[in-house]
């Protein structure tokens, strides 16, 4: 069966997280995505762990591999004029160009939208960087971890005022791509209807703030600043993570959210607990007496088996699940039933574990069509096939550090 995006062609100059994750959506759904990289300035993720067998190497990083499935990889040293000339020859082939350098880079190389649209008038081009193409901090260097702090996610993660317990990793790198992929797909439809391409300037910062919109609207209206508040909720009580019996030396925690009286009674029955405390009489008073409530629940579950509790609570209509660590995730039956984990054959790493898609289409399902490329894996195929270069010309360009 055909893939949804078959026939769409993408030149992908992006690196690290947001850009490659954006084009991965396209590649896994059948678009032909060519990633342009260079040994002169390696994608930093190629240098990041985890590495196959814990041995570093530019073709051994699963960090890089996870975001570059289904793509072809070529190398071009854009600092070299001959490399830029080859890019100009490739642009007419592309429907979409994506790049994620700091804003001045593409302009400096004369590979910005104004130049590329002369070669391909209906081109759709996306530039994604941390703070956008314009403004005083457009050239801010950094990566997603810092963006998660700057856009406000660190400040709402902690046990209370003064406590900061950040989310793991570059959190905003996993927000922005869903916007940029939507943007590209909508722009493709607009081009189909009107014949017009366009330029899209996306700041990760601005996209990420959409995940905090209620708190921003609130601040502008009333001056209230949302802060860290552990697992407190105005909506659910109990609401949090409660420690259960350890298993094989590992802590086990139960995530639990109780929405109303009926669920509260169901929970008590499962826990075999009696709540004689008057502070627990109504949902409202339970919300107001969170600390006492947390102690009560903690005591009731401390020596229970977490998976047994989850099954019984859910059977009784209460929202609950184990707080899963990364080993648990690889053994999770629901992720398995969704066919989430994939082992793909990588040219250097051999069989490697990839996260699959987070959605499934019934008629034109996407899939991880191939493992990520090693550096320059498709040089021969692309430079011969698309540009018609001979083996001698390719060899010569390699010697000159153009294909590099």
């Amino acid at each position: 069966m055909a893939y949804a995006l078959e026939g769409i062609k993408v030149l992908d100059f992006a690196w690290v997280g947001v850009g490659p994750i954006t084009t991965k959506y396209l590649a896994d759904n059948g678009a032909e995505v060519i990633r342009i990289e260079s040994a002169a300035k390696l994608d930093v993720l190629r240098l990041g762990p985890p590495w196959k067998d814990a041995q570093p190497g530019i073709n051994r990083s699963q960090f890089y591999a996870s975001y570059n499935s289904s793509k072809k990889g070529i190398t071009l040293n854009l600092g070299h004029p001959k490399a830029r000339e080859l890019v100009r020859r490739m642009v007419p082939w592309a429907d979409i160009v994506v790049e994620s350098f700091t804003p001045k880079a593409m302009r400096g190389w004369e590979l910005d939208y104004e130049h590329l649209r002369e070669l391909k008038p209906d081109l759709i081009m996306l530039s994604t960087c941390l703070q956008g193409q314009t403004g005083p901090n457009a050239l801010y260097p950094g990566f997603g971890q810092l963006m998660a702090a700057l856009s406000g996610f660190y400040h709402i993660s902690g046990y209370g005022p003064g406590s900061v317990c950040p989310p793991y990793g570059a959190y905003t790198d996993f927000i922005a791509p869903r916007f940029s992929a939507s943007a590209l797909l909508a722009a493709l439809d607009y081009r189909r209807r009107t014949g017009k391409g366009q330029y899209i300037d996306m700041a990760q910062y601005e996209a990420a703030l959409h995940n905090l919109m209620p708190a921003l609207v609130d601040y502008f209206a009333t001056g209230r600043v949302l802060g860290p508040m552990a697992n407190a909720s105005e909506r659910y009580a109990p609401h949090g993570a409660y420690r259960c019996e350890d298993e094989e030396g590992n802590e086990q925690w139960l995530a639990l959210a109780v929405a109303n009286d009926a669920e509260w009674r169901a929970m008590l029955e499962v826990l075999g607990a009696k709540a004689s405390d008057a502070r627990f009489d109504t949902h409202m008073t339970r919300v107001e007496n969170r600390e006492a409530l947390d102690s009560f629940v903690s005591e009731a579950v401390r020596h229970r088996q977490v998976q047994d509790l989850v099954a019984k609570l859910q059977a009784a209509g209460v929202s609950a699940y184990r707080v899963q660590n990364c080993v648990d995730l690889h053994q999770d039956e629901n992720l398995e039933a969704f066919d989430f984990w994939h082992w793909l054959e990588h040219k250097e790493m051999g069989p490697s574990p990839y996260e699959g898609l987070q959605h499934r289409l019934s008629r034109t399902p996407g899939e991880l069509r191939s493992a990520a490329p090693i550096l320059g894996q498709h040089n021969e195929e692309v430079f011969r096939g698309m540009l018609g270069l001979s083996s001698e010309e390719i060899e010569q360009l390699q010697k000159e550090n153009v294909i590099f």
Partner: protein
Amino acid sequence: MASELLKGFRMLELADEKGSFCGKIFADLGADVIKVEPVGGCSTRRIPPFLEDIPDSDRSLYFIAYQAGKRSVTANLETADGRALVTELARQSDFLVESFPLGYLDSIGLGYDELSRSNQRLIYASITPFGDKGPAKNYKAADIVTWASGGMMYLMGEEGRPPLQMSLPQAGMHAGAEAAVASLIAHYPRQTSGLGQKVVVNMQACIVWTLMNEQAMPIFHGDFLRRTGVFVGSNDTRRKMVFRCSDGHISILIMGGPVGAPSTIALVNWMAEKGFAADWMKAKDWMSWVPGILMAMTQKDREEIDELEDRVEKFFLTMTKQEIYREALKRRILLAPVATVADAAADEQLKARKFFVQVDHQDTLGRSLTFPGAFAKFSATPISPPRRAPRLGEHNREVYSGLLGLGDERLSRLRTEGAI
């Protein structure tokens, strides 16, 4: 004028906080998004906190933010008339997004199989906490439960204390945005085939995807991460990434090697100017300093890191986060303030890009509200500020009469019978 990106396309939204963000993104892109609410109102109207802490169906900050740009109709799905209205609306829609418990809409004749029979173009997205196949497919999942099932919760917090959620629930945001991408992927082939399809979004998987490089760590490196508070890495190689300053916190990852050294050298130079750098720090070859990453961390490395982190914090404590951030921008030091919404509201970069926009709420709230603006700047089809979120059933007449051609008499009978 609304963006022309998806002009002329219509989405029906039958979703709570698991999927309302999908409709919001479609509305931003210019689609006509019709929110179908139960007669008592969508549950997202009751999500606290409320504007000025006044509980009211038009004052939930969640509702104000994420239902903006949509139209609202009411339909009681428990009645045959209510269901018939939704069927008719679906016939005239291009997209549908829903987040009911798995199988509920099928059971009342509003599933994909039923609705696609009269509209084969329909793209129908179901947002599910755990997918549609596994043993937990019928499990209930409040946002915190998805945060836990997807693995992010395990990594947030301190050793010996409970794992954490963020103060503003996030799983529904990831899932809603994923539904938007997936629906638009399905849209592309429909333009030639004329055929829609069913989309299933798995919320748990959406959270797993946010774990960055952690998933393969147990497989390739033999262990999994624990909660480490303000540190990153395992206990013996841990590095601090959040430091106190005079009015809050700064996030910085002090690294050597080609990626980190230029920034670290700039930081050390700045500290040296102010008398906060030790001599060894000034003499260090930061370019080849990568302990605990590409080489083992020795006792001496550990001591140096501890001293470095201690000195950096003492240095930062002499300044505010904005003072540090401004100077770091000049010196190209890779750091960021641990910003609050107040910091974002005052940020000069966002101001220069005119990011925040006004949304008129005069008729409902007697005021205007400030919103985050376009998530991206489109040269040909700019995203404009949304209309305010709708009142309950505000567009019943407009939609049921204008779109479905129902007369006044029919409308008032539907109202009396509790269908709308």
